[in-house]
């Protein structure tokens, strides 16, 4: 109860801060918008083997990957905000109060996930004029999945940030691990058209399961087994990484 109250309290503060400094949203969606307008049109021929008969199909295949990669990168860089708050002395001030330690982390994580969903919503809406069509239940389920994916990426970022505790090193490290994970998740092009060895390697990547699930949902197949498999993989991993980061956090700050 106290955990929920305190998490809500800190989440409200974090949302207020985002509301007052709206420039982040512009920078956050500038790149996905560029891909949406200038990269997707390249794909019509490339995606024919996937069964893409029209631009509408191309958007249905590409947009889910774009949403996953947005959640992935926004989450992955969430550790910076956390370290900045440590540097600003916000945590030290909060730690002398009886506020729940886990709430300090979860309130922030909730903010990061909320910012992802806003970005995803904008990109989804912008894709409709290009012919994106997705049944509403599938879309809602996809957003639930995106929330879990984002939470997992955020928790991974917090784990790394709390372990290395250095904003400079964090940037290089995240870029180094982020790129291969994103490519191996099939976010740009579906893994189905990749060589077999890459497909096998991708099985080890939880984000590729996530991408396949979201893509299946956008393609309209709610009953595709990859949907529940992907959901199971990311949910289990998200729970583990979130618990790990709250524990790391409590140890660092208690």
């Amino acid at each position, binding site marked *: 109860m106290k955990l929920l109250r305190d998490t809500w309290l800190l989440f409200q503060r974090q949302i*207020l*801060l985002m509301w*007052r400094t709206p420039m982040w949203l512009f920078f956050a969606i500038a790149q996905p918008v560029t891909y949406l307008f200038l990269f997707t049109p390249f794909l019509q021929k490339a995606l024919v083997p996937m069964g893409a008969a029209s631009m509408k199909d191309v958007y249905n295949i590409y947009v889910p990957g774009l949403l996953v990669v947005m959640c992935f990168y926004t989450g992955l860089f969430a550790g910076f905000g956390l370290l900045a708050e440590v540097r*600003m*002395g*916000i945590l030290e001030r*909060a730690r*002398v*109060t*009886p506020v729940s330690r886990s709430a300090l982390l979860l309130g922030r994580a909730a903010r990061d996930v909320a910012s992802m969903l806003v970005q995803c919503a904008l990109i989804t809406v912008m894709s409709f004029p290009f012919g994106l069509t997705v049944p509403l239940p599938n879309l809602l389920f996809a957003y639930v999945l995106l929330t879990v994916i984002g939470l997992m990426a955020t928790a991974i970022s917090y784990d790394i940030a709390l372990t290395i505790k250095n904003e400079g090193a964090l940037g290089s490290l995240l870029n180094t691990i982020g790129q291969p994970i994103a490519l191996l998740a099939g976010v740009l092009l579906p893994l189905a058209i990749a060589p077999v060895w890459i497909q096998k390697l991708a099985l080890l990547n939880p984000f590729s399961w996530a991408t396949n699930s979201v893509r299946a949902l956008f393609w309209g197949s709610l009953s595709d087994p990859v949907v529940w498999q992907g959901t199971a993989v990311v949910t289990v991993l998200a729970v583990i990484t979130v618990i790990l980061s709250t524990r790391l956090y409590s140890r660092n700050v208690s």
Partner: protein
Amino acid sequence: MIEIKELRKSYRSKRRNGTTTVDAVNGVDLSVAEGEIFGFLGPNGAGKTTTLRMLATLLAPDSGQARIAGVDLLADPAGVRRHIGYVAQGGGTWDEVTAREELVLQGRMHGLAKAEAQQRAAEALAAFQLDEYGDRWCKTYSGGQRRRLDIALGVVHRPKVLFLDEPTAGLDPQSRAHMWEEVRRLRAEGMTVFLTTHYLDEADSLCDRIAIIDHGRIVAEGTPDQLKQQISGNVVVVGLGGPTAQAETLLKDKPYVLKLETEGEDALRLYVDAGETAIPQVMRELTDGGVALSTIALHRPSLDDVFLTKTGRSLRES
């Protein structure tokens, strides 16, 4: 209100030739009474902030005991947090929120309901003369306003004990004076204030009692006057404008002269019980003995003299 016994904290630091252990706080004993302004005076790196952070539950001590407002620090840090406020050396607020919003959040983090937190925030803004800036973003605040907000945040839940880390570091003289008034006002309201400082004048005029810390150990403790008295009573400096030998012979066996030293070629430094009564006696003695004196000055020992006596170096130099 605060009882500390044998508090210790050491850090391991990695060097090229293996790890070394630095004893940041090396067995500190202290007791602070209710309603006291207690000052922790020492040079940078002496262990002041480490001690303060341990007492504020931010850092776990290696060993020792401490009770704050009757609660055991090591056994129940969460219990201690209910009774204390802590103000760090700087920072602690977001840039794009107002002082009022920060005060409300702080109250709510202490478990207050929304309406009560808002009420307390309004009271705190008034008490710290921040009313007119209360709804401005924190990043627009001047140094002095910022510091007042920091302290307001530390006391919005009305703690019994307030810890202040270098409350006036970097402030201009006017803001410092203002800050001292705020701290005295909190004492008048019954709060116990424990602060660290490396300013001699702050320890001297603001604090009821002080402890001098150096290399993680307390080297002296008492009221500023007690400490100054402890080392020598008063000091009289007599300028002779010439050789000192004759004056030395005249004064050295007088009962009111505790100790006599030459200062340079033409002056004497006398350590006496009470400078005010010694001065006329010294003047009479020298005049009667036919020695002309050019200047005479009473030099009361400062806290820096205390520090110098206890540690062998001056706080101003370190």
